[in-house]
């Protein structure tokens, strides 16, 4: 058993702040050391949650896109269908992120189109997209304190 990545990066961060920073003489060096410490801590948190966040978000966006489909013009339906056909092969974060990019790119187009439609169904989808956008930012909030 080895220390997990989150703990390793926490250790890197703490080491930089408590052991290295006091030894750094210049303000520029001190700032760079502090930035490295903060970044290591954030990357650690992201390492642990990225796949879970992306799987959850990709599922949520897929559902909205599918439900919006009947309201869309034919050309947009075609591009959304292509986006829905994108699926990560495996659970590498880079693959899940590529799927997320395709789906969120389609979401941008659908949001713009839906906003121009005057119907209750469109307004309902619009509301769900805004909810998803808010939720997407909550998924990305840091639980660690960033200094």
């Amino acid at each position, binding site marked *: 058993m080895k220390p997990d990545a989150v703990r390793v990066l926490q250790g890197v961060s703490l080491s930089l702040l408590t052991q290295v920073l006091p030894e750094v003489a*210049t*303000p*520029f060096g*001190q*700032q*760079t050391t502090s*930035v*490295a410490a*903060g*970044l290591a801590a*954030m*990357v650690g948190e*992201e390492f642990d949650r990225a796949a879970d966040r992306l799987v959850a978000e990709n599922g949520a966006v897929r559902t909205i896109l599918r439900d919006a489909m009947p309201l869309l013009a034919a050309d947009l339906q075609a591009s959304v269908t292509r986006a829905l056909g994108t699926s990560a092969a495996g659970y590498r974060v880079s693959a899940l*992120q590529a799927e*997320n*990019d395709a789906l*969120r*790119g389609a*979401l*941008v187009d659908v*949001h*713009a189109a839906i*906003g121009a439609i005057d119907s209750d169904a469109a307004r309902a989808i619009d509301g769900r*997209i*805004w909810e998803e*956008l*808010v939720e*997407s*930012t909550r998924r*990305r*909030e*840091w639980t660690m304190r*960033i200094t």
Partner: protein
Amino acid sequence: MEEPLTRYLRARIPDAEDVTVSDLSRIPGGASRETWMFEASWTSAGERTTTPLIVRKDPPASLLDTDREVEYAFYSSFYGTRVPVPRMCWLEADATILGGPFFIMERIVGCENNTRVILAPPYSALQPQLAREMYEILAAIATFDWHGSAIESVCRVPTADSAWRDELEHWEAIIDEEELSPQPVIRATIRWLRAHPPRPAQRVSVVHGDYRVGNFLYRDDGHIHGILDWEMAHLGDPLEDLAWSFNQSWQWARDGRPGGIVERDEAVRIWEAASGLTADAASLHWWELFTDVKCQGIWLKGARAFQEGKTSEIFLALVAYSLVNTQDQSALRAMGKMS
């Protein structure tokens, strides 16, 4: 860098002998240009002179791609006015001398610009005075007559009607080019802004472009002694600067107060009284929301530069990790979509 700087100064200062550069050190921050301070000494007509100077050099990649000639013109135009700025010395476009174009200016000594220091004693007691001066100087920038100055020769001049559209299109184009992943929140923000334009600008003014706590020099005498970082300066709607100073990214005390030093309404009141201009509420709201778009353009540009290996300045990666999401949340709150 001491040697090329010394050679440069020797060529630039007439009759200078025994030119030396000492105490060269990089100043933290400065995500758009590398900023270095140093002491330059030389002998002329038998007299030894020592001057504290600053060199601002273009890095290989940064948060911004701006023309140092434009920044130099703004500094030069405001020198000797109500708006305190350091005196410009030399502008150099030859990238071979220091590894990038640069300019050299005098250093205003004995000042702070730290965003945490201003929150703590003794400066916390001086915040009302510093805030008053901050927004009075901003009013002076807004009402500055730029016609016939160096600014006019380096800037595109918008109309009162086009100022908002020009800025929105400029930053939208940057996001188009720089985003590493789709940005649905900021795209929705841009659509909202386009659908709800502000009133035409009351005047076409100088816009500093990055006016906030952190970009001015202050002392414990309670005065501001230098307005810095003019790299995003342009001509436009003066409300842009006022709104920018309110953005949550520089609410350093995390208490909703601009810069952590003043209540928003008080800042508006000072600015209106000093400028004679009006901060129309709906228009100011538009410009505040716009600042989220502009910030996002800056953060995304830095993120791409780092991702593509154009730079290994880890500050750019930190900005992407720490600010892109909070900027989205700021925009969602401003549009009433998030509490």
